[in-house]
C-alpha cells in the first residue's frame, strides 16, 4: 500500500507555500464555480494561466484545489439560490434548497461540505490502494497502450450525449485537430499552412479555454443580462445530532458509488449524484421526505460527486488516460508542467505524484472550513451585474491565452475553438469527446506507429496476448453498448422518470 508515501506527500503539501497555493486555488475555484454554467472544467481551463510561473508541484496542487473549489461553489448556489453552478450539483438542489427554505440553509451547507469531505477522503483512500497497481501498466507495450487509449476513447464517445453521430463528430473533430503539426513519425508538417505557430500543433490550453470558457461566455451573452433570485438565508450554522446521524450512512454509500463510477471512463458527475440520490431514496425509511428537505438527499449525492472527482483521476495516474473533460484538462496541465501523467509519474516523480494525491485531502479540508463562512461572499459575487463579470472573464481569457506563448496566435486559436464550441452547443454536439480526442489523439497515433514499427507492419500485433484480446473485447462491448444505450435508457425512463431540474433553472 502507499500510505507511507501518502504521509510523505502530506508533509510536502503542509508547507506554507503549498498551503497558500491550495488556499488560493480553493478560493478562486469557488469564485468561478458559483457562476452559473461555469463548472470545474470551465473553472480549471479559465484559471490555468494563473499557475504559469509556478513550479510543477505548486501548479498542480493549485489546479486540483481550483477543481474542488469550483465543485463546492456550485453546491453553495444550489442550496441557497436553487442555481446549480454545475450539472453534478443538480441533485443537491432538490433537498438542499428545501432545507434552506425552512431556514436550515446553514446545516444544509455543512452537511454538503462534510459529505463532500468524506467522499474526497474515501476517494483518496481508494486511490492509495489502487495506485500500486500502476506498476502493472509499466509492463504494457505500445500495442496495449494503443488499445487502452482506444478503449478510453470508445467509452467516452459511447457515453457522451444522446446522439451517437454527434458524439462521433465531436471525437473525430478532436482527432483531426490533434493531427495538426509536425508528424512524430516521419517529421512531415500536416495542416500547418506554412505557419510556424502550428508546427508544434494546436495549443491544448487555448483550445480548452475556448471550448469550455469562451463558448459559455457567448452562450450567456446571447441571453442578455442574468437574473439572480434573492438568496435564502444561511441562518443557524450547525446541523443537529440527528442530521449528522442521518447523513452518515448515505455519505459512506455515496462515496462508494462515486468512487467506483469515477473509475469508469465517461461516467458523468450529474448522473452519478442522481444515481446516489435514487439509491438513498429507495433505501431510506423516510423516502416521503425526499424532495422536501431530507439530509440524506444532500449527503449521498455530494459524497458521490466528490468521491468521483478523486477516483476519476485514478485512470490518469495509473494508465495516463483521462476519462472526463475535467481530467483531460488536468492531463494537459501535467504535460504543460513537464510531468507525464501515467505510471511513469510514480516511477520518475513519486514525490510530486504523492504530493498531488495528498493535496486532494488538504484541499477538501480547506474547503470544509471555508465553505460556509464564505457563502455570503459568493452570493454577493453573483449580484455583480453580469456585464462586468463577463467583461472581466473575457479580459482574463484574452490575457491568459496570450501568456501561454506570448503570442496573439493563441488568442485566435482560443477564439476559433470558442466559436466552434458555441455552435456545437447550439446543435447539441457534446464537447467532451472533442477534448478527449485532442488529448488521446497523439497517444493513439504514437503507440499505433510504434506498434507497427515493432511488428514491421503486421497488424496482428494488436491481437497478441490475453491483455490485448480482453481490451479489444471491452472496446467492442463499449461501442455496441453506446449504440443501444439511448434505446435502453428511453425504455427504462418511460416508467418512473421525474424531471428534477430543467436546465432553464440555471438561467
Amino acid at each position: 500500500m502507499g500510505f507511507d508515501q501518502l504521509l510523505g506527500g502530506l508533509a510536502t503539501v503542509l508547507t506554507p507555500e503549498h498551503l497558500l497555493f491550495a488556499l488560493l486555488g480553493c478560493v478562486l475555484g469557488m469564485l468561478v464555480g458559483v457562476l452559473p454554467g461555469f463548472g470545474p472544467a470551465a473553472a480549471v481551463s479559465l484559471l490555468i494561466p494563473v499557475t504559469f510561473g509556478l513550479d510543477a508541484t505548486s501548479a498542480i496542487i493549485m489546479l486540483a484545489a481550483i477543481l474542488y473549489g469550483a465543485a463546492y461553489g456550485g453546491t453553495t448556489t444550489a442550496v441557497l439560490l436553487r442555481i446549480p453552478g454545475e450539472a453534478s450539483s443538480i441533485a443537491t438542489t432538490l433537498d438542499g434548497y428545501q432545507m434552506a427554505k425552512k431556514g436550515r440553509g446553514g446545516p444544509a451547507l455543512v452537511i454538503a461540505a462534510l459529505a463532500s469531505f468524506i467522499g474526497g477522503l474515501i476517494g483518496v483512500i481508494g486511490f492509495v490502494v489502487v495506485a500500486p497497481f500502476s506498476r502493472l501498466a509499466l509492463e504494457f507495450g505500445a500495442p496495449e497502450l494503443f488499445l487502452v487509449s482506444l478503449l478510453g476513447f470508445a467509452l467516452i464517445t459511447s457515453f457522451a450525449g444522446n446522439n451517437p453521430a454527434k458524439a462521433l463528430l465531436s471525437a473525430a473533430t478532436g482527432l483531426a485537430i490533434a493531427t495538426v503539426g509536425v508528424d512524430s513519425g516521419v517529421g512531415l508538417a500536416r495542416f500547418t499552412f506554412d505557419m510556424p505557430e502550428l508546427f508544434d500543433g494546436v495549443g491544448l490550453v487555448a483550445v480548452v479555454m475556448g471550448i469550455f470558457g469562451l463558448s459559455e461566455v457567448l452562450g450567456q451573452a446571447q441571453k442578455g443580462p442574468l437574473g439572480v433570485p434573492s438568496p435564502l438565508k444561511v441562518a443557524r450554522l450547525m446541523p443537529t445530532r440527528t442530521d449528522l446521524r442521518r447523513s452518515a450512512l448515505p455519505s459512506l454509500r455515496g462515496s462508494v458509488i462515486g468512487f467506483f463510477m469515477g473509475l469508469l471512463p465517461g461516467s458523468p458527475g450529474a448522473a452519478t449524484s442522481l444515481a446516489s440520490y435514487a439509491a438513498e431514496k429507495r433505501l431510506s425509511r423516510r423516502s416521503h421526505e425526499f424532495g422536501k428537505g431530507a439530509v440524506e438527499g444532500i449527503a449521498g449525492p455530494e459524497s458521490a460527486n466528490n468521491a468521483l472527482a478523486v477516483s476519476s483521476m485514478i485512470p490518469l495516474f495509473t494508465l495516463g488516460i483521462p476519462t472526463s473533460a475535467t481530467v483531460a484538462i488536468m492531463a494537459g496541465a501535467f504535460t504543460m508542467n513537464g510531468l507525464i501523467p501515467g505510471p511513469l509519474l510514480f516511477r520518475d516523480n513519486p514525490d510530486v505524484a504523492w504530493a498531488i494525491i495528498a493535496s486532494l485531502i488538504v484541499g477538501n479540508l480547506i474547503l470544509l472550513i471555508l465553505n460556509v463562512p464564505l457563502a455570503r461572499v459568493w452570493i454577493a459575487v453573483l449580484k455583480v451585474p453580469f456585464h462586468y463579470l463577463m467583461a472581466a472573464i473575457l479580459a482574463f481569457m484574452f490575457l491568459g491565452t496570450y501568456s501561454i506563448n506570448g503570442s496573439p496566435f493563441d488568442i485566435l486559436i482560443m477564439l476559433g475553438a470558442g466559436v466552434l464550441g458555441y455552435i456545437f452547443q447550439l446543435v447539441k454536439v457534446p464537447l467532451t469527446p472533442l477534448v478527449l480526442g485532442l488529448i488521446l489523439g497523439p497517444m493513439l497515433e504514437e503507440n499505433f506507429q510504434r506498434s507497427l514499427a515493432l511488428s514491421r507492419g503486421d497488424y496482428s500485433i494488436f491481437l497478441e496476448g490475453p491483455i490485448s484480446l480482453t481490451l479489444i473485447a471491452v472496446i467492442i462491448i463499449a461501442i455496441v453498448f453506446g449504440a443501444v444505450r439511448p434505446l435502453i435508457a428511453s425504455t427504462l425512463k418511460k416508467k418512473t422518470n421525474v424531471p428534477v431540474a430543467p436546465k432553464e433553472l440555471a438561467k
Partner: protein
Amino acid sequence: MQTLTAPVALEWTVAGAALAGGLGIAAVGAGYGLSNISGVGAGFFPVVAGTLMAIAGILWILQLLAARRAPDLTQVPAAAGDTMESLPPHHASESALVSLLDDDNSDEPDVAEFPDRQGWARVGIIVGSILLAALMLPLLGYTVVMTLQLGTILHFVSKRKLWISAVVAVGAALASRLVFEVWLGTALPTASLDFLAGLGL
C-alpha cells in the same frame, strides 16, 4: 413535414460542413502518405479522423432527412434533430441504474437557447472584438487593445453608457496589466506605433 427553422438550418449547415470538412481532411491527409517502410505514414491518422467526421456528417444528415419525412416533428424528437427536443434535461428516477443511463444526466454544458437577432448581434460583437484585438495587438499594444475591446463589449453588448464603459475599460486594462506584469511576471506587448510606444503603451 419539418419546416426549415433557424435551428434546423444550422443543424443542416453543421452536418454538411462535417461531411465536406471530413472529406477534405481525408483527401489532404491521403496526400501525406498512408504508409511507409516502418508501418503507417503521416497521412494515416488524418485520413481516419476525416473519414470518421464524414461518416458522422452522413449519419446526421440521414437523421435530418428522416425527420423531414416525419409527419409531426414533435412526436419524434430523437430522430428529428435534437434542437427540437421537448423534454427538460436532468431526471431523477427511482432507479439508480436509470439515472446513470439517462442521456440527459450528462455533464455537458447547458444547451444555449437558439439566439434571436439581438442575441446573434451580441455574440458577433464579442467575437469580432476579440478577433480585432488579437490582430491589432502587435500594432497598438495591450493597454490600448484591451481598453478598446472592453469598451466595445460594455457599450454595445451590455448597453452601458459610453463614459461608464470607458472608465471601466481603462481601469480594467490598467489593473490587469498591473496584475500580469508585476505579480505574474508576464511581459505584455507594447505598441509598435512610435506615438503610442512613446507614451509607454
